[in-house]
């Protein structure tokens, strides 16, 4: 079941970050971003749905995408901690998106040739989406980091807040030894280069990984995830199978 667990980790990353982004809908600082963030959320949730469906079939015990997304508790979620971090201000949200997309784009590039056709299929669609997320979020990191005194301060705070959660991206987790999925650790040099290039333009310094935070892959989450899941799951738990 190593592949099931590994696909679940991927699916959880995408659903949790997609849900976080969707929380901005109706609250963004400007109309243009109020459309851009749900667009990105839908990219992530689209990938999550295919991955959950795939995981359910790999498991073979009849759980579908809804069962996996809505009927697992916090400790069963296997997302990395970065994606569950609260939205904070716009700087935090854009930096979180940039960090994640800068990781996923090269990850999906490596997954294009996966022996698992579903993974290769998701990769084919997701590389383009992640390339855009890097561009969109990266442009904001540059403009806020190299913007006004206040925007630069907020972006520096966002880096201090989120950077400790980036090391966990490169842990192999359940994918250790799974041939159908790329190595996460192997993505590190590309991620480092992407982040360094944008930070150089933004006038930001890349912090040392002094106190990396980890635990998401074994179900040890921060306080914020439980609150998020409660809100995300309440409708399905209250009205099982509800559709609209």
């Amino acid at each position, binding site marked *: 079941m190593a592949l099931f667990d590994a696909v679940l980790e991927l699916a959880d990353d995408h659903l949790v970050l997609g849900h976080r982004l969707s929380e901005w809908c109706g609250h963004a600082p*400007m*109309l*243009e*971003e109020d*459309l*851009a963030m749900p*667009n990105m959320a839908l990219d992530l949730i689209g990938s999550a749905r295919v991955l959950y469906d795939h995981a359910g079939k790999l498991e073979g015990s009849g759980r579908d995408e809804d069962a996996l997304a809505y009927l697992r508790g916090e400790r069963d979620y296997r997302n990395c901690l970065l994606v569950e971090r609260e939205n904070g201000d716009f700087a935090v949200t854009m930096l979180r998106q940039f960090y994640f997309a800068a990781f996923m784009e090269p990850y999906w590039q490596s997954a294009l040739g996966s022996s698992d056709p579903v993974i290769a299929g998701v990769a084919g669609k997701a590389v383009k989406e992640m390339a*855009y997320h890097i*561009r*969109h979020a990266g*442009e904001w990191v540059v*403009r806020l980091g190299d913007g006004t005194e206040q925007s630069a301060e907020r972006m520096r705070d966002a880096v201090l807040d989120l950077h400790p959660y980036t090391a966990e991206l490169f842990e192999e987790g359940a994918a250790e030894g799974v041939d159908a999925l790329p190595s996460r650790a192997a993505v590190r040099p590309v991620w480092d280069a992407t982040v360094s290039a944008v930070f150089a333009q933004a006038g930001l310094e890349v912090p040392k990984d002094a106190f990396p935070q980890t635990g998401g892959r074994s179900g040890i989450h921060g306080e914020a995830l439980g609150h998020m899941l409660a809100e995300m799951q309440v409708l399905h738990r209250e009205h099982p199978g509800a559709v609209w």
Partner: protein
Amino acid sequence: MANETPLWEVFIRPRNGLSHKHVGSLHAADEVLALNAARDVYTRRSEGTSIWVVRSSQIVASDPDQSEENFEPTGDKIYRHPTFYDIPEEVGHM
């Protein structure tokens, strides 16, 4: 806000072979963000294959007060419309 994020006009080309067509406007700080925003706001339903953005302040428009002198003189020059020709059947739709 308006100073930091001026108005841009957005033009989208729906398919190769067609012209860019004005679809609306948006606010953005600079041309790169304007292109991104245009992509996010105006191409969500596969409307386009190419985007142009132009600062609204760069557009020079005709004066509505001059519309009579600009446009009415053409009203009675029906001979400028190519409606006096018989199009041979074999030409088909033009």
